[in-house]
Structures are given as C-alpha cells and as structure tokens.
C-alpha cells in the first residue's frame, strides 16, 4: 500500500506501529487511534465550513447577479476568515430570564448533532469513521438531535418569537422525518444491509437510477430537515425576526450558523453516499484516493443544487409545508416502499439479471411518480378557486376634462 494511493490508511498503519513500538498495550493504542480519528474528522468537517460559507455566498451572489465577496484575498477567499475573527470578538449578550444551562447547551448541540453524522460517512474505500452495521438507523437517530437543539434554543430564550420559531421547527422537522426514513428504507432494502459502506459497495448502478423517486423524496425531505429556504419557517425574518436564535449573539449565534452550513453539506454528502454511489467511480478500486475525489465531487454537486434551490424559491406557508409532506411525500413514500419490496422479491425469486432489475425498478418508480402527479393534478382541478375580480377596480383617475 503506497502512501500516495491511500494516505489515510498509511498514516494509521505507521502511527499504530509507532505507538506499539513505544510499548503501549493494544487496548490503549486502539483507544488513542480512535480518539485521534474523531479529532481529525471533526476538525476537517469544521474547517470545511469556512470554505462552504465562502462558496455559498459566492454562488448565491451569482444566482442574484451580484459578485459576492471579492475584496479580501483572491476571489474573496479570505473573507470568511475575517468574519470568523470578527465574530470571535463580539459580545455575548445573555438576556434576562433565560434558562442558563439549556441556553448554553443549544448552540453546542446544534453543531455536534451534525458532527455525529460524519462518524458513519465513508470518505473513500476503507476510510470511514466507523462502519456500523446499523449505520442508517444511527443516521436517523443522530439526525434527530438537531431538532432538539433548536427546541432547546427556542424554549430557553425567554422570547415569544424564539418560542414560535421552535414550535414551527418541531412541527416541520418531525414531519419530514417520516419521508426521510421511508426514502432511506429503499436503499437499505435494495442493498440488504444497513451499513453505509455496505450500501456504497452494493451500488453497481447508482440508486439514483434504480430508484429516482426515493432519491427525490430524500432530497426534498433533507431540504426541509436543514431548514433553509423554501422551508426556513423557523427563522422567517419577515414574521418572527430571527426565530429560535434571536436572543443569541457572538459566537453562540455563530455556532448555529456553522451547524446550519455543515448540516447542508452533510445531507449533500449523505445523498452522494446513498444515491450517487459515494466513492465509486472509474479507477477508485485500484487507486483509493481517487474515490475521495469522486465522493467530494458528488457531494459538492448536490450542495450546488441545495444552494440553487435556496436562492431561487420563495418561502412556503406552514400549511403548504405540512400538506406537501403529509399529503404528497408520505403517501408516495409508502407506496414506493411496497412497490419496491414486491418488485425486488419477484426479481429475486425469478433470478433475473441485474440489468432487468434496474430497469423494472426504474419503470415502477417512473409509473408511481406519474400516477402521483396525475392525482395531484386531478385534485387541483377540482379544488374551488377564488375567481379573479372582473370589474375594474377603483383607482385614482384624472377628472375627465370637458372640452369646450
């Protein structure tokens, strides 16, 4: 194993031998190695945020026909670092009547809840924090902690706007958990394993092609889970000022910001892993480091899509948001799960080839989506609509001049 084709495993191997050479027992070596792994993974994830903030500001600016940050450093690359230094020196204002412990816990939890997810994301072949055999269940469980952080922030802030923001968040995140789990069940069913690395290895054809509807459900539900426009009701600035983080200032506010950006990239990475084949690609088996390039390229592609959606669509109302979830995504997800299970079993029993399997899943998926849209269209046509006013409206007109 050469250093250049697989640097991470080489370093791990070298460090393990070094520690054993110092006379430490195997148990301690394992513990130290794992602690180092956690440290490195978390540090890299948080450093990535600095780049993500720059990227998002630059992309959003381009979508709005602006230039974005371009003064500090080449292409404004140093701008986020300047911002970080500024936010470090801002005063931490703690308003009267907050619940001190929960108020301080919430920003920590909002970042660490996202960091927990990175433990099971495979970066390239053989490099993953930990290959849990219940990885997908762990993703669902750890992802739900983010909701708790926002509820804690809203509840402990002693502010009505924060509380309303927290209510909305819980209604939204809790609802969109259902289609997320349904969409996650489809790759688990197809791969026959809950291990995230296992799902990557099973994707001879990426699951975006095998089950596009599951990918769509996961993407839309993830957009809601990260709480960005079109689903940013929890911090709708025109209605409830800043929502759950209104009473936070200084770096405590900054941590919510970091958590949000990292969450957005993390769900992009999860989408890349579960539906785009993660590190799989041409030559990734022979030259593992290439897998990291593929994985990052796919993750950033999905992240680009997230930013695109964010900077294009307006915010939805809370009833529209809940209707979209409970009356469209959830029924489609349930039907998709049944259909996938039945089709997969028929194919397993009949022993058809891999290509036939992919094709039949694809056809069933497209059919489900088509029927779902048809039903929506039918219901939409029958819905009573407010008629537009036909009469001319009273507007200010100049008085008619009688010509003499």
């Amino acid at each position, binding site marked *: 194993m050469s250093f250049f084709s697989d640097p991470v495993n080489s370093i791990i191997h070298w460090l393990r031998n070094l520690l054993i050479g110092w006379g430490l027992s195997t148990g301690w070596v394992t513990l130290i190695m*794992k602690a180092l792994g956690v440290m490195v993974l978390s540090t890299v994830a948080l450093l990535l945020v600095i780049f993500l903030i720059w990227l998002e500001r630059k992309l959003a600016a381009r979508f709005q026909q602006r230039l974005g940050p371009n003064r500090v450093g080449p292409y404004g690359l140093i701008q986020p670092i300047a911002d970080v230094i500024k936010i470090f020196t801002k005063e931490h204002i703690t*308003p009267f009547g907050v619940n001190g412990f929960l108020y301080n816990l919430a920003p920590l939890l909002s970042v660490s809840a996202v960091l927990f997810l990175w433990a099971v994301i495979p970066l390239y072949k053989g490099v993953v924090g930990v290959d849990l055999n219940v990885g997908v269940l*762990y993703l669902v469980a750890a992802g739900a902690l983010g909701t708790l952080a926002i509820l804690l922030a809203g509840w402990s802030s002693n502010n009505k706007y924060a509380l309303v923001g927290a*209510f909305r968040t819980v209604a939204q995140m809790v609802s969109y958990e*259902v289609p997320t*789990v349904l969409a996650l069940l489809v790759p688990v069913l197809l791969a026959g394993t809950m291990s995230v690395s296992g799902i990557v290895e099973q994707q001879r054809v990426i699951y975006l092609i095998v089950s596009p509807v599951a990918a769509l459900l996961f993407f839309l539900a993830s957009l809601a889970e990260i709480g960005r426009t079109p689903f940013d009701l929890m911090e709708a600035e025109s209605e409830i000022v800043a929502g759950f983080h209104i009473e936070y200032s200084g770096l405590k506010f900054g941590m919510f910001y970091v958590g949000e950006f990292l969450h957005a990239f993390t769900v992009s990475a999860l989408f890349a892993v579960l539906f785009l084949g993660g590190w799989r690609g041409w030559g990734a088996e022979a030259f593992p480091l290439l897998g990291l390039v593929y994985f990052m390229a796919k993750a950033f592609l999905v992240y680009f899509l997230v930013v695109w959606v964010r900077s294009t669509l307006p915010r939805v109302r*809370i*009833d529209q948001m809940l209707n979209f979830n409970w009356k469209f995504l959830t029924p489609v997800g349930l039907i998709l799960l049944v259909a996938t299970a*039945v089709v997969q079993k028929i194919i397993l029993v009949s022993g058809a080839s891999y290509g036939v399997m992919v094709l039949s899943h694809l056809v069933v998926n497209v059919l489900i989506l088509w029927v779902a849209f048809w039903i929506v269209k039918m219901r939409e046509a029958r819905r009573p609509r407010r008629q537009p006013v036909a009469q001319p409206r009273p507007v200010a007109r100049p008085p008619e001049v009688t010509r003499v």
Partner: protein
Amino acid sequence: MLENWIYIGLFLLLAWIFPGGPILIARFLSPHRPDAVKNDVYECGVETVGETWVQFKVQYYNFALTFLIFDVEMAFLFPWAVSFDKLPLFGVFSGAFFVLILFAELLAAWRKGALEWA
C-alpha cells in the same frame, strides 16, 4: 463489534469540545458590559407583554401524534428491509401488507382532518 461503539462513544464525548472550546475562548476575547436595556428581551424594541410561554395551537399536537405513529412503525421496518433477501415470500407480503395498513392509517387521519392546518 464493540470497538465500533467505542468510536461512537468517543465521538459523543469529544464532539462537544469542537463547538464548546471556541465559544469559551470567544467568551474571554469578547467584551462583557451588560446593562438593563441591552439585556432586555428583544421583541422589536417595545417592552414585552405577558408571559413568554404562550399557549400554542392544538395542531402541533395533532402532527406530533401522527408523526409518533409513523416513526415508531417505521422503526419496525428496518429489520425487515435488512433481511429482505432471506425472507420467504410470505414474510415479504406481510411486510408489504403492514405498510399498506400504515397507508390506510394515513388516509384515515387525512379524512378525519388531522392533517389540516386551520
């Protein structure tokens, strides 16, 4: 196997340092001059009226209950999905039937008006 969970345990312990450490450092770097106006509740500048912990709409409860039904039953489906290859045909169809019952539940809740926000 257990080694894997040591990693998760370490992660749960250490992941707090990364947001917590900078906040602690920033707390010492930043000024600290509280006063009565600055520390007041921020609600558009006017003084806040009444209790903060207001009553909220009952719909939040409705959606929470609906979510609870679905999320708990979804957790049952994970083992079914994992062992899918080894399941007999009967097992697959009973699982599919279970999901269809869930679907009927959703339709029932929809019809009862539990999914309306008004």
